[in-house]
């Protein structure tokens, strides 16, 4: 059979394939070129548009390349078959080897990720509870990494070792109760350990016993699209009541100045915290849900309209110290929004500074009260004389109003 001999001649077959492929490629290329010129004429070919078309063509070319390879493989397999050399390509073996390779390269990739990207993460926790969270995170990381690596080695090694072999028969092994019990109980024990640890940490974060000698500073944060309004308690240490129904253009937070505690509440355009002193944030939202997220302190809690929530923690590292620790002179603590809240969700931030107790006292003394003369009028409170005698603020009321307006903006 001369035909068979002809087909069995592999070089002939391969060249035939390449020939047909080439002719079809060139034919295709002509077509494509024709199409390209046809579309190109009426449209202004900006460089970007050109590249889009270029990518489309490149992809089509790639498809063609894949098709050629597919055809060549098919011809190769057919010739093997007609020659009687059994089936052409052992795909089971190829896939098994690929799994083995994937395991090796993948493990290296994981190592690379852990060491390279793993070194680009948040610096050490800057709060008391954050250290506990990080400890637990590390334990969880170690446990899960061990399981991750071990199971993947087993998975891909099995895929490689037990690839199809005509001579072999699989081992009929429908169940083994002991084994199943083992791998039910071991994860259960490990998880119990993690649950207990997590539960205790969680409780220690949200159930604080107040130390009368070290009372937390109360700070109120109100979120709205797309800003954070901060209210410091003033000299009395208590943030006064507020009511959303009192919100007007000059009283953006709806502070109720009939409450005595509100009278000395201060505006701040940044959050400044004294180091090693507990702070208790009361969080509420004016419009939609936002999330009060300060990653460096491992603090996050949603702000919900109509519901005040609280997060108490103690910062332990000042901004200046952190600059040294991270070797980054531009280091800043951040407050950002972590709950989708609208168009500018991606840019809803507030600067946070942790300073020494002394610096904090100096800073807080300079902050102006919310209560302006305009507001006094609205609430029918006695107006202050022009050179203001407000206890904490040395600034003039005129300045107060401007800063108020600036804040609103």
């Amino acid at each position, binding site marked *: 059979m001369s035909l068979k001999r002809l087909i069995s001649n592999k070089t002939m077959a391969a060249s035939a394939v390449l020939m047909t492929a080439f002719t079809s490629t060139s034919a295709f290329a002509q077509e494509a070129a024709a199409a390209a010129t046809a579309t190109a004429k009426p449209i202004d070919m900006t460089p*970007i548009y050109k590249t*889009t078309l270029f990518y489309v063509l490149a992809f089509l070319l790639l498809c063609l390349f*894949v098709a050629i390879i*597919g055809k060549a493989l098919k011809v190769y397999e057919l010739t093997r078959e007609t020659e009687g050399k059994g089936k052409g390509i052992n795909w089971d073996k190829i*896939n098994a080897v690929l799994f083995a390779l*994937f395991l090796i390269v993948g493990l290296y*990739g994981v190592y690379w*990720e852990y060491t390279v990207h*793993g070194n*680009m993460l*948040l610096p050490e926790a800057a709060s008391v509870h954050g250290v506990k969270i990080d400890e*637990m*995170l590390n334990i*969880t990381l170690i446990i*899960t990494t061990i399981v*991750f690596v071990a*199971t993947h080695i087993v*998975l*891909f090694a099995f*895929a490689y070792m*037990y690839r199809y072999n005509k001579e072999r028969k*699989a081992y009929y*092994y*429908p*169940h*083994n109760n002991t084994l*199943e019990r083992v791998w*039910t109980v071991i*994860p259960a024990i490990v*998880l119990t350990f*993690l649950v207990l640890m*997590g*539960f205790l940490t*969680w*409780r220690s974060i949200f159930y604080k016993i107040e130390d009368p000698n070290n009372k937390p500073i109360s700070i109120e944060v109100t979120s709205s699209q797309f800003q954070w309004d901060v209210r410091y308690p003033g000299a009395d240490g208590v943030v006064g009541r507020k009511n*959303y129904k009192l*919100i*007007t253009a000059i009283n*953006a937070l709806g502070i109720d100045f009939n409450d005595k505690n509100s009278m000395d509440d201060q505006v701040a355009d940044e959050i400044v915290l004294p180091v090693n002193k507990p702070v208790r944030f009361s969080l509420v939202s*004016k*419009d*939609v*849900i936002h999330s009060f*997220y300060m*990653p460096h302190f*491992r603090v996050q*809690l*949603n702000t919900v*309209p*109509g*519901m005040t*929530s609280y997060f108490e923690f103690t910062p332990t590292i000042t901004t200046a110290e952190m600059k040294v620790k991270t070797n980054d002179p531009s280091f800043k603590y951040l407050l*950002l*929004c*972590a*709950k989708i809240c*609208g*168009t500018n*969700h991606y*840019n809803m931030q507030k600067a946070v500074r942790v300073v020494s107790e002394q610096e904090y006292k100096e800073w807080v003394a300079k902050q102006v009260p919310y209560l302006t003369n305009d507001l006094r009028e609205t609430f029918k409170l006695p107006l202050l004389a022009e050179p203001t005698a407000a206890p904490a603020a040395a600034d003039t009321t005129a300045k107060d109003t401007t800063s108020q307006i600036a804040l609103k903006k």
Partner: protein
Amino acid sequence: MSTISVHDTHHDNHDDHAHGHHHETFLSKYVFSMDHKMIAKQFLITGIIMAVIAMGLSILFRIQLAWPDKTFPILESFLGHWAEGGRIKPDFYLSLVTIHGTIMVFFVLTAGLSGTFSNLLIPLQVGARDMASPFLNMLSYWFFFMACVIMMSSFFIQTGPASAGWTVYPPLSAVPKAIPGSELGMTLWLISMVLFVASSLMGGINYVTTILNMRTKGMDLWKMPLTIWAFFLTAILGILSFPVLVAGVVLLVFDRSFGTSFYLSDIVLGTQILPNQGGSPILWQHLFWFLGHPEVYIVIMPAMGISSEIISVNSRKPIFGYHAMVYSLIGITILSFIVWGHHMFVTGMNPWLGGVFMITTLIIAVPSAVKTFNWLATLWRGNIRFTPAMLFAIGLVSFFISGGLTGIWLGNAALDINLHDTYFVVAHFHLVMGSAAIFGMLAGVYHWFPRMFGRLMDKKLGYLHFWVTFICAYLVFFPLHFLGLDGVPRRYYAFTEFEFMQKWLTVNVLVTWAAIIAALAQVAFLFNFFYSIFRGKVSTQNPWEANTLEWTAPVERIHGNWPGEIPTVYRWPYDYSKPGSDVDFIQQTTPFSETMSSNMPHDFEGNEEAEEIQKQWDAVNKPSQTAE
């Protein structure tokens, strides 16, 4: 596909099937079909189309993330004012992530996965002529189809599609002024969702009824393949949890359109005080996640069932620990109802509840671990045939491990404080739900394609598809964990406003390129799929040499599934490579009397008469058996 009349005169409970007589038109055969196989194909193809759309949306926002300062005029030509000057706008970015999530979770991984394979396999694998209610089944598809159309129509309205995230938390989703997407787009989203849930319920009721009432002779519950167990429990989960979403959605519709205050209170936009009072946005979250968490198991359990079956068939081994596999599915089903609060650790929910939900959440990891180890044990000493379906099933196991393990992090309330709503969560659920469940679905498509179309898909293109997708999926989602650990929140339009995020821009470029390559690799699948429907190699009746009942039905896929009597089932579906048997698979329809040489004592389930017969046979034949 010819219509063979089914005149079942045998003593069979299901012989009342009377579809053989009427004349089939194009409309009744392909459009308003009541044949479960055709409905499965409708679900699958619609699911694939929706998946391609959702994937396209993800590429759009990945481009924005990778090159936030570059312009792409081509985007403007396609998207008009949503990409003015060739840059996607922030509002539209949020629409993209919202609709991407909604389509993928509901339309692709719920309807596309459950809808396809429950419809296709339940009647075929339990031995029924069709679903319990073929009409309801047809309605189920058309409700789903309408839901898809309405969801997509929101791209053609002035204010754009819903953009409050796929979880549509009010007040953002309830107050139209909060974001443009919360105007008409959100209304369409809600209507679409109600239709979708209706579809899902009709499907679910059908699945449960069919499995409980229409199993063929001999098919007791413990002889059902794991696929059927998975579909059964998934349907129960859906029936019990989806109505809660409808309740939530209806209340949201009321809040939006009729001025009620179920979710709204104390809201001020600028200085405009809204009249709503007394509601709680947290209520929506409870209702949503009461569905939402079971939903992720609705997504993954069918994929688990499918891959259990495929791994067993292609390892030529019984699935290891069949009973444990079923009990772990049952365990997951029950537990999945009491873990929803782990989505809400930091919403301001009472911290005491956080502690409780943490415990239940971490318990659910135990059945998941059992399943993983059982898959590994099934591979052990198998004789693995790497069909494309098998590759995808192994890929599922890998993704399920990678994504499942980070669940242990996020399920821990204390760790969740810093990881909540960051890219760590994105990485976690894309691996465990996105990648693993999609791989389960693709595995199912490759495996049961011959059952659906009577032809085989090209395996070499399947290999190409698998390897590129598998590698790229890891390249996309693995690095995202580190963004999350660095405190980068999700749903950020650009990383340009924060200095600490700048260092992740290069990673974003890598991730986007990997995503683009993965998307292009799907062309190999799409071509393979549609080409093989018409031109693929014609399949034999049982191309994978599998045991389950669907492979005893003729390749022609007749209405009513089997000509003549429905086969009787005698054994469990996993008798692969049984010692003493000449062939490495024994179908469920083979009685023990035909396999005397390979029967085992526990096969008879305490039937003393059968054991006695076997004993007598062994006494006569075993010596020669061992000599052989």
